[in-house]
């Protein structure tokens, strides 16, 4: 019942690829939404000769890409995301940056550490929309699938292992196609690592599917019923969508943890994942957001934007929850219809059997068969309702939680900045007092503290600016992804709906002559 579609080999970079995208995997199509992936290739190619010194090409490129990412993001989104309409050749800018960044830049480990010491080049900021467009033109480079759930072990120590397969043209990976086996806690572990690293920067990190003690226990115990199978399938599909969202995210894709997750044969057991199940994390976020929203917020132009968006997010959360509840009830009713149809089919079969008149008996038996076929259709439709619509809504409810988390982070950063400013102010007051009281030794200390805090204020202000930029960018990307996601899922839903309907038409057409043949 998985909503997975046939995988197409990723086309060559630069090729138009509308069709493969729409037939792509369940969730997000890995459209070239990230400038970094797009950039990396020319970078890689142009830097080929430079890696002759024995460094591992993949690593080098990833470091370069990181720096590139850092640069572009800083230069492009300078003042709190204020848009400008200047156009620039993306690649030209990149090569300019890179020439500044010669290979002497030491390899950095972190995927997204923004080093404030980089000089900001004076390139003009470009509009978000234009960058988005350029991203769209980039080819699809990455395809991830989660398949073949297998039960490993027995009893309460058993677990499900999932095959994670990747197909990619990105040079940062060792091979073009490869697969590894992962278990659920590995996915949770990946999420934990990513949040620790990236959530402070305002990245929207896709949340993983929730833990379910009940569901897993059934599987462990070995219950071979349809509810266990459903549960495993649901989880498999959810894990797949989760991974697809992760690799679709430009910054996260660069993270070595992600790469390791996809590539490495044996992964160390993730520990402490019980603290960070999706629901738990969300609860944390929700509590924090309640607290912070009670704070008074400095009103400025960009803050209005953030306030607005946060409100949008909250109302959307409510709406999606409502939709999810409604779709859930739809799924249940459809399942009920399945049951009723099956029972009705049996009773008609019995009626047909008891019937003397041959033609009538035959027609009634055919009727029973038509109803049986309709039951199958209803089953498939219920699965479609669920796996396409309900899970989509559930995913986005979780994602909105992550979005709220980002806004939260920004508020916290702002708070640090404000607090630092007020501390600085206090220190200055102390200095003034000391000047007046004429105590030179304490004055020296005071001046040192002031200088320290001035540095902090500058740092926090920069942090705040940076996170504001990131959050804004992430949010816009999220909105775009959301529309695309919904649209592609609904198209899929409609296609299945249409197909069901057409088969139904065929059933009726086949039955009509039977009915007419009754004498």
């Amino acid at each position, binding site marked *: 019942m998985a909503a997975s579609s046939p995988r197409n080999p990723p086309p060559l970079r630069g090729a138009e690829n509308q069709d493969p995208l729409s037939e792509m995997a369940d969730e997000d199509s890995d459209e070239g939404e990230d400038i970094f992936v797009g950039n990396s290739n020319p970078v890689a190619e142009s830097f080929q000769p430079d890696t002759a010194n024995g460094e591992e090409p993949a690593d080098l490129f990833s470091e370069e890409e990181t720096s590139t990412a850092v640069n572009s993001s800083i230069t492009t989104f300078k003042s709190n995301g204020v848009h400008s309409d200047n156009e620039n050749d993306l690649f030209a800018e990149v090569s300019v940056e890179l020439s500044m960044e010669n290979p002497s830049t030491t390899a950095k480990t972190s995927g997204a550490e923004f080093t404030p010491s980089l000089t900001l080049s004076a390139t003009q900021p470009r509009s978000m929309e234009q960058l988005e467009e350029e991203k769209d033109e980039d080819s699809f480079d990455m395809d991830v699938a989660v398949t073949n759930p297998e039960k490993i072990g027995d009893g309460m120590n058993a677990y499900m292992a999932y095959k994670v397969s990747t197909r990619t043209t990105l040079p940062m990976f060792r091979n073009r196609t490869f697969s590894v086996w992962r278990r659920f806690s590995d996915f949770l572990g990946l999420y934990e690592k990513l949040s620790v690293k990236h959530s402070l920067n305002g990245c929207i990190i896709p949340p993983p599917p929730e833990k379910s003690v009940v569901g897993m226990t059934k599987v462990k115990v070995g219950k071979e019923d349809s509810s266990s199978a459903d549960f495993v399938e649901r989880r498999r599909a959810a894990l797949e969508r989760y991974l697809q969202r992760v690799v679709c995210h430009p910054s996260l894709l660069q993270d070595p943890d992600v790469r390791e997750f996809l590539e490495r044969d044996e992964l160390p057991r993730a520990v402490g994942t019980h603290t960070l199940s999706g629901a738990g994390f969300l609860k944390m976020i929700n509590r924090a957001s309640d607290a912070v929203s009670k704070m008074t917020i400095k009103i400025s132009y960009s803050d209005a934007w953030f306030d607005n968006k946060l409100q949008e997010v909250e109302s959307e959360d409510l709406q999606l929850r409502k*939709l999810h509840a409604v779709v859930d009830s739809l799924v249940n*009713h459809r399942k*009920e219809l399945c049951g009723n149809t099956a029972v*009705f089919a049996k009773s008609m079969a*019995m009626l047909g059997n008891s*019937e003397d008149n041959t033609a009538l008996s035959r027609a009634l038996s055919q009727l029973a068969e038509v109803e049986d076929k309709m039951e199958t259709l209803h089953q498939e439709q219920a699965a479609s309702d669920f796996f396409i619509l309900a899970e989509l809504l559930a995913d986005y409810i979780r994602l909105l939680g992550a979005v709220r988390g980002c806004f939260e982070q920004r508020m916290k950063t702002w708070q640090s900045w404000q607090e630092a400013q007020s501390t600085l102010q206090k220190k200055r007051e102390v200095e003034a007092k000391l000047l007046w009281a004429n105590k030179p030794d304490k004055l020296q200390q005071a001046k040192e503290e002031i200088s320290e805090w001035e540095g902090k204020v500058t740092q926090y202000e920069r942090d705040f600016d940076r996170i504001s930029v990131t959050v804004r960018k992430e949010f816009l990307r999220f*909105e775009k992804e959301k529309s695309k996601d919904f649209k592609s899922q609904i198209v899929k839903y409609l296609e299945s*709906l249409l197909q069901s309907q057409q088969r139904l038409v065929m059933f009726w057409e086949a039955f009509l002559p039977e009915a007419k043949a009754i004498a």
Partner: protein
Amino acid sequence: MDEDLFLEDVGDSWSFQLGGEDEDDLHEYQAFLGSSFFDLSGDPFSQMGLGDHEGKQFCWKKTHTDSSAEEEEAREGSLSVSAQTIRVTEAVRDGDALTFIVISQKLSGSGEYHVARTHEDFQWLQQCLFSQEVVPGILGVIFPPLPAKPQLNAPTKVLKQLGFLAMGEDWRMYCMALETYLQQVAAHTTLSKNKCLENFLTSSEPPGRQRVRKGIFNRLSQAMEGMRKEGHKDVDDFFQTERDNNLTLTGCSKSATERFIDVVLTEQKLAVACGHFSTALHLCVEQEEDSAVLAFSKICVKLSEVIDSIKRNFESVAENNLSTLGLGLDLESRCQEAEKEMLYRRTCKLVVLETASRNAERAKPVKTAAMDELKVAAEKEFDHVSGVAKQEIARFHSTRVELLRQALILWCEKQLETARDTSFRYSEHLQAFKGLGE
């Protein structure tokens, strides 16, 4: 007998024991037989016309002359309206009761009759038919089943008894069931001649305000209930088979009807759920200039239209199910019950006959003549009933096959049309969606 609600109107409870072998019982038995219902002293019906029916209809000539004026009136005459044109067009709410408008076309072609009737009036008609005459063999007629009384603001359990007939808007299904009932009565060669029917269809005054002599045979059935003769073995293979088949079919058709009701109810629930979904989607629409928000709003609006289509599909499918196969199954189920009752009446007559035969054999010489007379009468009655029954059974089967055939064809045609419409609409939606945001 749950179905025969009119029996509740029967005031007397005539619970006597039949089949006893004492002389005491015999007296009671004689008293019973001596009632006017069994007019043995009257002219025997030499001509029953049993031989000259062709085709599927049961016709018999009326030769009974020794009946009261009322019976005369009740029996003579033929219907002045065309059976197929009888319509029950609507149900009008009148406080707590429903009034039905019955329209029928004059045979002469010179116009139509419009009358308003309540369910009590229908019941009156049914009773008339049951009690119409002391024609032997009347017990062998399969009487068209009258739907149970519709109750407004009734508890769900009561409505459930009506099944399909209580569903549909404005009691439309119920009206159609009444219509079928009237058409069946009017098409029955014997029953259609009942003056009460003419009265019912044409008189502007509501009928049934006159006291109708309550037919004994319904009391008979009720009384016989206590004897549990349903399983009594038959002397005739044809009838034994028919009884067995009927038993199975009654059960099967009732069960099928109930299951189908469940299907239709769930389809209606699905339509309602889709409505909620569609409404909830509309609430997601934001009036924003932001292009991303706008794009999402557009998606929500379009999806809402899709869900609306799905809703309309369910509504149509449920309606089609209701009005064709649902009604057909309901009618089939009730008709099987009607046949069951007829067969039961005949079985009771068989019991009476066998009892009378036994009594005649064991009678003391002084009573022999009387016993023999009783036995002969019972035999005659039984033969008449069996004769009528055979005819009715043949007619019944061909009618019900035809009814089911029509129901199935109509059902299939309507569902096919709905399915094609929906398919077309879905494909339009798909195209619209694919073109979104391009």
